[in-house]
């Protein structure tokens, strides 16, 4: 089923059925996806594929008790409606179980490229071959151990018993490359880069393949590093691994309701250095997570989460907005396969005014971390892990690649002593992030 009108009709039918079986309020969220993909493995084209699925998720409320059921067996949709009501009736009551009311939604332009409909398996194959050829043109020691190019057509539809009735089509081309360099016994770290485009004309796999290859080559021949406590510069990828999970957890209103978010009780207070501003914009032009409305049918808008170091807003769904007497912020997330969660869309850290090289320039001894492989605890803020593709900084310059180096610190503390934000930013999955310079980090060479 790839017709928007048909999908919307199916949702309306499911809404009526669920009400007939005893629900007071109902939300139907459905999505039809059609994906074409070509995968790289062992520096060669591996498999190409095509997939199509329609999934319908039903949230039934009975006396503010909630149940959720989903299926792709559309011929037996009524059984799923019955299941959702049955699950609701067995659940405890919660006054915060509410569905949102309809509000005006302005469609985001350029989400859907009609040319995507004729994008074929052979077009996807051509893009993966381009990634492999890019690696070949850079250095014979490079292997693209993995990679994917996928073309995705998505139709989302939401209908609820309060009158929300929305549908939207989007196209998204997603691609990544995983590069390793091998020179005799020396094996580099695995380097990963990712990009995406909503339009056929916006596809360009060469830059990400090139960056993955250069990062892999850069970590080849890395030797033991040095132990010290001092400045560390995190690349956008490392910022994603160390800090974005913390932002997503601490600014999630559900965690505030649960009592597990420290920042949930600190709105209006300073939680980071004044150079840190974090926004989230579900309508960002070209954003990977861009769409007109969230998982509950609330229109997306730009929201400042942290402004000049001050926590300014949490991310809400209808549930948390009711629980905390706040307004929904259109951060209900997820697919038709599950109940709405809460999460960022296109999260951005505002770039600074100095270049990455300027951040390095006055460091006597420090570390540039391109990738972080470890744990970052969003509750305690403690992070600890291996600095991957890391380079030692000496006397204001990049000195040499190092391996087996651990970094550790506490995110709440390092955000307060943040000493630099670069003007350069990169897209890392759905986030847009600069380089960040942190102080007082434990660096341990084993």
């Amino acid at each position, binding site marked *: 089923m790839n017709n928007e009108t048909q999908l919307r009709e199916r949702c309306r039918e499911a809404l009526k059925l669920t009400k007939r079986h005893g629900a007071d309020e109902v939300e139907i969220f459905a999505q039809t996806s059609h994906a074409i993909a070509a995968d790289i493995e*062992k520096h060669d084209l591996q498999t190409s*594929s095509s997939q*199509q699925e329609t*999934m319908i998720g039903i949230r039934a409320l009975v006396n503010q008790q909630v149940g959720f059921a989903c299926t*792709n067996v559309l011929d037996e949709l009524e059984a799923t409606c019955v299941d959702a009501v049955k699950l609701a009736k*067995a659940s405890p009551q919660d006054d915060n179980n509410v569905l949102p009311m309809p509000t005006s939604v302005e469609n985001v332009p350029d989400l859907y490229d009609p040319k995507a409909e004729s994008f074929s398996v052979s077009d996807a194959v051509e893009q993966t*071959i381009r990634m492999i050829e890019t690696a070949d043109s850079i250095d014979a020691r490079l292997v693209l151990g993995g990679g994917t190019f996928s073309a995705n057509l998505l139709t989302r539809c939401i209908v609820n018993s309060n009158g929300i009735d929305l549908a939207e089509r989007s196209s998204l081309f997603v691609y990544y490359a995983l590069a390793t360099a091998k020179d005799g016994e020396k094996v580099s*770290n*695995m380097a990963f880069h990712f990009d995406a485009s909503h339009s056929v004309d916006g596809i360009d796999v060469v830059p990400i393949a090139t960056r993955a290859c250069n990062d892999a080559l850069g970590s080849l021949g890395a030797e033991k590093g040095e132990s010290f406590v001092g400045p560390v510069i995190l690349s956008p990828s490392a910022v994603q691994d160390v800090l974005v999970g913390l932002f997503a957890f601490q600014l999630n209103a559900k965690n505030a309701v649960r009592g597990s978010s420290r920042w949930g009780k600190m709105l209006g207070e300073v939680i980071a250095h004044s150079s840190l501003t974090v926004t989230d914009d579900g309508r960002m032009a070209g954003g990977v997570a861009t769409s007109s409305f969230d998982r509950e049918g609330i229109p997306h808008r730009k929201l400042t989460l942290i402004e000049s170091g001050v926590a300014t807003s949490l991310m809400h769904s209808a549930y948390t907005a009711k629980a905390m007497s706040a307004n929904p912020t259109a951060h209900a997330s997820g697919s038709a396969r599950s109940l709405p969660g809460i999460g960022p869309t296109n999260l951005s850290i505002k770039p600074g005014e100095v270049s990455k090289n300027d951040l390095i320039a006055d460091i006597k001894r420090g570390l540039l971390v391109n990738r972080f492989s470890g744990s*970052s605890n969003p509750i305690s803020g403690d992070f600890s892990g291996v600095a991957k593709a890391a380079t030692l900084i000496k006397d204001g310059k990049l000195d040499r690649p190092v391996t087996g180096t651990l970094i550790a610190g506490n995110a709440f503390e390092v955000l307060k002593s943040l000493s630099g934000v670069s003007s350069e930013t990169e897209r890392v999955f759905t986030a847009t992030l600069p380089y960040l310079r942190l102080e007082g980090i434990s660096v341990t060479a084993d």
Partner: protein
Amino acid sequence: MQELLARIVAQSGGWIELRFQERKTKQIAVRNGTLEESSSKRIQGIGVRALVDGVFGFASTTNLTEKGILRAVAEAQGAAQTSASAKKQRIKGLANASMGVGTFPVSTSDPLDNHTLEEKLALVMTIDERIRNGSSLIVSSATSYAEIQDEKLIVTSDGANAHVFISIPEFRVMAVAQQDGEQCFGTEANSVNGGWSDLMGLTPPEELADYAVRIAVEQLNAPHPPGGLATVVLDPGLVGVLSHEAIGHTVEADIVLGGAITADKMNQQVASELVTMLDSGISEHLPHATGTLPVDDEGVATCKTTLIENGVLRSYLHNRETAAHFGVEPTGNARAFEYSDAPLIRMRNTYIEPGDTSVEDLIAGVDDGYYMCGLGFGGQADSNAEFMFGVREAREIKNGKVGKLVRGATISGNAFDVLHSVDAVGNDFKWDLGAGTCGKSQAAKVDAGGPHLRCKGTIGGRQ
């Protein structure tokens, strides 16, 4: 459906694999006494893989009519043909294997459907309350139960015709403790491939809850460990994580061919001669390991594969394509999570064989080191076997005695260096990956474990 699939396979021409899957799942999640989720999912579909001119093509469909399946077959064959002109290394053939034929039921006397939604919900609510009542310092609790029930039909043009049933229930708990504005958490989880009483009999949910509370509270006042190389005793949980995450992925033949560190190490000493590591579709030593799988998703009957024998690398993990490439027999490691996933090389139950040292003696032999239990928050490993795992519970060992807890500990290093450093292997055994889900572009339910091990590893903390 089985007859329909067999007929389509017979009339399709060329090599073809059809895999029907019906999956039913349930999820109950409670936090702080509030029900956050009570949900069910039912999906059905067929995945089709065709091999044309030495290239695989894959398509999936939810249209289960003969016409719908034939369309998916044509799409898979078309995708393979399109790719054939671009692929450098054509598949020369698929290795012969013992193909699965027959019906493979779930091994349990207590199927999950014998227990009502109300019973499962009541248990989750009760355990969540137990966590919150466990200490006055507990500020948040989370408890969840989930189950996956799969029915699969795997039919190939070269002999597989298997009807496979899988049932995986899991139980998870988390406790968050707070003092002076500082929060710490404790977690524990269990899963089995089996029925309700098989899960409940493993470790009762009450014990999981009490453990999570104890770890959360005790961590509040625990110091961070100093960083550096240390002698450690790893529990079966961490031995399993090391075996699966840091070693297991480097011996998956597709990763090997992509340039893993094991690529030229076959029949070489890669670990202490005390170490023998295996991956098995059968639940060895103890029943109901989560990754138990009678037939893989290529239709190959699974077996026990010795990866490392007395420290010497003996085998990789294969699908039929890589087995043909290396000239060996398939090991039954091709797995697909849902009908819409093409099979990939994945682990099943990965473990180290028990040795002959008692756990008491392992610990008694450490003057200054750590006793480390279970995977904590986060962890990652690369194809060069470098790894870093957060540790759920790490305690100092001083003069052969386990002492105080340290907080936020990690263990890292090169997994083969760690295995080379093993100087004693415990005589115990446990499957202990918690509710193990492995991610490698698609999910797979796996298990891992072993005995306690004594070795050296780099401890991370905060100086």
